[in-house]
């Protein structure tokens, strides 16, 4: 295994002539090796190991989201150069490399031009601290072997750090951070990554090129390495916003850093057509210093179904064994989780049930424009003050990816939710709605106050509405809009009924009124063991991936039921209600680990929906002014 980390890519081009299939064989070899059990955990990850500890030209992996796709580029697949020692003409391979060696004979007839594409990848936005922590700890084993204590590999401002940071990171592997979700798990990882932290203000294109580089993270306050991934094969199989685990060759050659002179000699511009094509902004976006944004030459990418490190990620027999063993426990874990959520929701069992269903919801397919399986929950009647914030922290502890959007008037008016194409820098400027699949988006409407929404505020609200109703975001390409489907679980907390559409509204009915909310929630939270919380995490991720079907018999029963309900009062049950009940029934069955709908399941779904509806009716009559 060790050799991977020093694996250097010199594929003599002579080889390419004699054996044209070598490229396929290289991929085959790596895929084969990585398929072996455990082997992928030996590859150091860019997410966990600071860049300067990684050896250039070695194999690394990166768990990321494709944030932007740049234009395809042509490169020298094979080029001819003069070997400095023998003075003979030799052919070299340019694949998986950024730079050529020695002087290239540009006029050689042996030059082969090939095509590749660059993706701009960022770490998965909103990844929960616990998920980072666990994958960090599990991958701890090797990276020290690749550590070369040579100064030149370091990025700037790093001199105070040293080897001793490593043992510190191996803090008790089984504690999970409680409470304060904003905290970053590896304290001293922070100082290392300071330079790659996204500026929390949403300013674009700093006027001074020496200023902070905007790494274009979708969410403010994110940190972690961004990476330019060079993709060689299967370009069409990748889509924007895919989450991938990329295995590739790291390249941090300092030559890649283009120094932008703001005041270049204009006469130079005249004669350098190739250089005048790009604005400084574009150069900064497309050729950032390699020490900050390393290049990764992709060998192999694995699409991630989820980023929960507690679950086996590959859909192998490994996983199915894991699933079947967990299925047995499912019902009991569910009961525990439900009890926990009930406590959190101040003793409201029904709301807890719905919250649980919401957390495992997932857009499993689309019928033309209609996304199926989405289940947006509006939790109304939330106590004010910091309750919603605490609630979010608890949700964050349970799901691998989440983001809380506080819908205050100011954020709605000023924040960029929808990604927008910046034509000057020629890149897609990210927005908070550019999220990975199955991210939990927590919209806190209790923060909204009276006031005027300006035009960007209205656009943001519309975007949220579209997201909830159609599970799509229309990216702004200024001359036209482009629709990107997404799969985001939206939870809206509000005082009254939310102004946003939702699939289902549950008014919260607190059974207990703790004098000190904060203390109350912290106590509940602390009472859970880490192992317990981990079980919940596995449960939520797993329930989502289960298959589901309805037998003909139950179909018939459901139909009969629907007809019966309509017979009594056609106004009471509409097609929309049936839509919702089918989703509830599905989620309810899955939450119990049942992969088919049973009659009981259907009745239960009907029952809780009835309870919920009577509660909303009640709420309506209480304050009649509500629509």
């Amino acid at each position: 295994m060790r050799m991977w980390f020093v694996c250097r890519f010199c594929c003599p081009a002579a080889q390419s002539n004699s054996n044209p299939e070598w490229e396929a064989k290289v991929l085959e070899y790596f895929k084969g090796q990585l398929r072996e059990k455990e082997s992928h955990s030996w590859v150091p990850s860019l997410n966990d190991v600071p860049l300067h500890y990684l050896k250039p030209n070695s194999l690394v992996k990166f768990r990321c989201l494709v944030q932007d796709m740049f234009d395809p580029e042509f490169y020298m697949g094979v080029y001819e150069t003069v070997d400095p020692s023998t003075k003979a003409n030799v052919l070299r391979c340019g694949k998986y490399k950024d730079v050529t060696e020695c002087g290239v004979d540009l006029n050689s007839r042996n030059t082969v031009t090939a095509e590749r594409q660059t993706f701009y990848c960022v770490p998965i936005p909103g990844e929960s601290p616990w998920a980072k922590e666990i994958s960090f700890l599990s991958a701890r084993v090797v990276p020290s072997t690749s550590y070369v204590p040579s100064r030149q590999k370091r990025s700037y401002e790093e001199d105070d750090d040293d080897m001793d940071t490593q043992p510190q990171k191996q803090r008790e592997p089984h504690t999970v951070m409680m409470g304060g979700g904003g905290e970053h798990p590896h304290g001293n990882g922070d100082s290392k990554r300071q330079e790659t932290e996204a500026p929390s203000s949403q300013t674009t294109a700093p006027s001074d090129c020496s200023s902070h580089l905007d790494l274009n993270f979708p969410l403010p306050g994110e940190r972690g390495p961004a990476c330019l991934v060079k993709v060689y094969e299967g370009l069409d199989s990748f889509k924007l916003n895919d989450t991938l685990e990329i295995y590739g060759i790291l390249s941090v050659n300092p030559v890649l850093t283009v120094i932008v002179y703001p005041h270049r000699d204009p006469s130079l511009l005249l004669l350098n057509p190739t250089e005048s094509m790009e604005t400084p902004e574009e150069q900064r976006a497309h050729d950032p210093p390699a020490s900050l944004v390393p290049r990764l030459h992709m060998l192999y990418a694995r699409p991630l179904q989820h980023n929960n490190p507690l679950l086996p990620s590959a859909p192998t027999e490994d996983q199915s064994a894991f699933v079947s063993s967990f299925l047995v426990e499912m019902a009991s874990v569910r009961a525990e989780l439900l009890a926990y959520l009930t406590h959190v929701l101040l003793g409201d069992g029904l709301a807890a049930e719905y919250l649980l269903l919401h957390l495992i919801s997932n857009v499993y397919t689309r019928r033309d424009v209609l996304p199926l399986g989405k289940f947006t929950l509006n939790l109304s009647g939330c106590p004010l003050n910091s309750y919603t914030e605490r609630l979010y922290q608890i949700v964050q502890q349970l799901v691998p990816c989440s983001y809380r959007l506080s819908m205050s008037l100011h954020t709605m008016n000023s924040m960029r939710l929808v990604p927008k194409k910046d034509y000057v820098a020629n890149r897609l400027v990210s927005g908070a709605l550019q999220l990975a699949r199955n991210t939990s988006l927590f919209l806190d409407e209790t923060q909204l106050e009276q006031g005027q929404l300006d035009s960007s505020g209205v656009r943001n609200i519309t975007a949220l509405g579209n997201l909830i109703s159609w599970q799509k975001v229309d990216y702004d390409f200024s001359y036209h809009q482009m629709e990107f489907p997404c799969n985001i679980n939206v939870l809206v907390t509000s005082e009254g009924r939310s102004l946003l559409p939702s699939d289902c509204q549950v008014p919260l009915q607190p059974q207990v009124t703790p004098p000190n909310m904060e203390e109350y929630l912290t106590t509940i939270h602390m009472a859970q063991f880490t192992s317990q919380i981990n079980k919940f995490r596995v449960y939520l991720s797993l329930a989502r991936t289960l298959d589901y079907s309805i037998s003909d018999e139950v179909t018939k029963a459901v139909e009969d039921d629907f007809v019966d309900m309509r017979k009594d009062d056609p106004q009471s049950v509409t097609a929309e209600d049936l839509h919702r009940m089918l989703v509830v029934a599905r989620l309810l069955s899955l939450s119990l680990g049942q992969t088919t709908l049973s009659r009981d399941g259907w009745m239960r779904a009907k029952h809780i929906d009835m309870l919920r509806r009577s509660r909303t009716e009640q709420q309506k009559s209480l304050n009649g002014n509500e629509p």
Partner: protein
Amino acid sequence: MSSPTSTPVGSKRSRDDIPVTRKFYRNRLSESYLQSYVDMSSPLMYGTPSSRVEGTPRSGVRGTPVRQRPDLGSARKAPQVDLHTELPSADGAVASEQAAGQKLVIWGTDVNVGTCKEKFQRFLQRFIDPTSNEDENAGLDLNEPLYMQKLEEISVIGEPVLNVNCSHVQSFDADLYRQLISYPQEVIPTFDMAVNELFFERFPDSILEHQIQVRPYNALKTRNMRSLNPEDIDQMITISGMVIRTSQLIPEMQEAFFQCQVCAFSTRVEVDRGRIAEPAVCRNCNTTHSLALIHNRSAFSDKQMIKVQESPDDMPAGQTPHTTIVYAHNDLVDKVQPGDRINITGIYRAVPMRENPRQSTVKSVYKTHIDVIHFRKTDEKRLHGLDEDSDQKLFTEERVQTLKELAAKPDVYERLSSALAPSIYEQEDIKKGILLQLFGGTRKDFSQTGRGNFRAEVNILLCGDPGTSKSQLLQYVFNLVPRGQYTSGKGSSAVGLTAYVMKDPETKQLVLQTGALVLSDNGICCIDEFDKMSDSTRSVLHEVMEQQTLSIAKAGIICQLNARTSVLAAANPVESQWNPKKTTIENIQLPHTLLSRFDLIFLMLDPQDEAYDRRLAHHLVALYYQSEEQIEEEFLDMAVLKDYIAYARTYINPRLNEEASQALIEAYVDMRKIGSGRGMVSAYPRQLESLIRLAEAHAKVRFSDKVETVDVEEAKRLHREALKQSATDPRTGFVDISILTTGMSATARKRKEEVAQALKKMIQSRGKTPAMKYQQLFDDLRGQSEAAITKDMFEEALRALADEDYLTVTGKTVRLL
């Protein structure tokens, strides 16, 4: 390829083609190269002195200056072929050695200048395209050689540019076309020569600014930016896209002027691959490093960098659009603005990244761009409204075949309508209506007789209870059509729908920004929450929905834009539930003037019927558990449907046949008759027009060029169904078109009359009472009448009598006159 050394990616060509001699070349550098490179004894070294005799330049050619074409060689001069004098000795020697009659070709290609020129001249003189319908050819005689007429045009107008459609070249001479595509850099100058000779032969006295330049367009090689690959380098391509950024004008040096600081000797150096080699030694006085560049005596040409982005239509879902850099030269600079949709014909180039002399390693990446030869705006036509091929999709043979097979099936209409929004349950007739809307009628032009264009677009209004998946249907249609726009009545203003004037922040120019209706020209504009639209916004729809144009008069811009858009609108009833006791107008509170412009108005109501409920439940449950494959089998693919519609819209233009027109006449007469029995008008010419449109659309669905009786039957049925839903008078149960055309049913009108008469009678019976109390009169009338009389009805009756000048109402008193 002028010189072998200059090809960065020349490997392909040089490997494939055997190097042969060349007839001319462009710089000294390559000469020495060539001599060492070409094997002189090779039998492939051809040269024929005889081929040089032809094409004697006429005086006219000499008199007109040649203009450089930086678009053809990024920094090289176009070959100035004066075939008599400039032959280099090396080549001459080669040529003379060769046996006469052998072909002489340009180095690196298989292009023989003489043959090529001759072929092109023949093409210009003979090519006739009787079926041409391009707008550029308007006013030309289609039965005469097309390009000769264009040359004549040049002599008159004096614009020395000849645009040549490559598909014409292809149909005339496929080999010439192949050469043009593969070696544009060599072939186009040859074309230039050919056309100039021809032109000055014909019009020897013409004075042009510079010699004519040939600009080919519409190369079929590449259509899509995404399909560009390394093979296309240095070939001529045509791609479509949208301009997103244009740079300022860049003066590019073509020729540098150096002067010796010692002896004032001057010399000129041409740009070679973007660089100028500064002469180290003065040739006159032999001083080293004494030459200085004199800027204002050097020659520059205009250049502009333009960024073009893939048009959203030809992009795979889920990926971001690609961009390409395009260089425009000389008079093509500033021809396009950001936002324009254009077709670009040009030469695809790849340039290696600049080598840094201090580093031995370089980035192994090429920069690519296109040197543009020809621009063609595709959205320009929206303003002329001449032809439709602007967004013509190209269909492959197989695709057309599958589409035709599909069309031949007897149940194609049902199949297509069920393929439409399969997730929405039943509502067959609504889907059929929308399907016909997607196809549209045949466009007719009556401008000769003064009526202008007849509307070919079908407008549909859906009204009904909230939550009956109206929005979903709209969303589906919006996603299906290439030029769809989706707006919500609540959020859109008149300005957002039509057009607004904006000041461009950069240029400070006033720019007309088009709104949803104009953007969906030739498409469908989906308007949700139609009833929530403000009156002023709705009023713009009046013009759009009948005249299909949009007149704008604001901020000094007065214009009429085409908005040939179909409107698909959805409206909710005023009371949150549809009131079956009221008419459509009363339910949705829309002005009848607008309603009558909809061809079909459908109600989407909850039928509240057990069998329906069961089917609905089945459908929904199936939706939730059926696997992807099952669905695929059941329904047509959305892509097929898209292509089917696009194909029918472009290629099928059905016309009424005799029986169909008879059937239509009968149908119309029948419709009129229904009402006349009860003294009502039940159909207006507008309904006849609707019928015709629907029948034509149905014929399009069948891929039929003739509208037949079946089409009329279906149009009649659908129209009747829609009327039954929307124009049934709730009081009588009869279908009454006047509900939609006058906003009031005939019975209601009759009733109003009756009440007024009763009131009049009552007042008359009282004798001489010049003034009465309003309230008392109302109470009396109510007491007298058997039917219930509301205050509204009473007021209406009063108003009617006031109109007759029988009485006046002032405040609370009613006075007789």
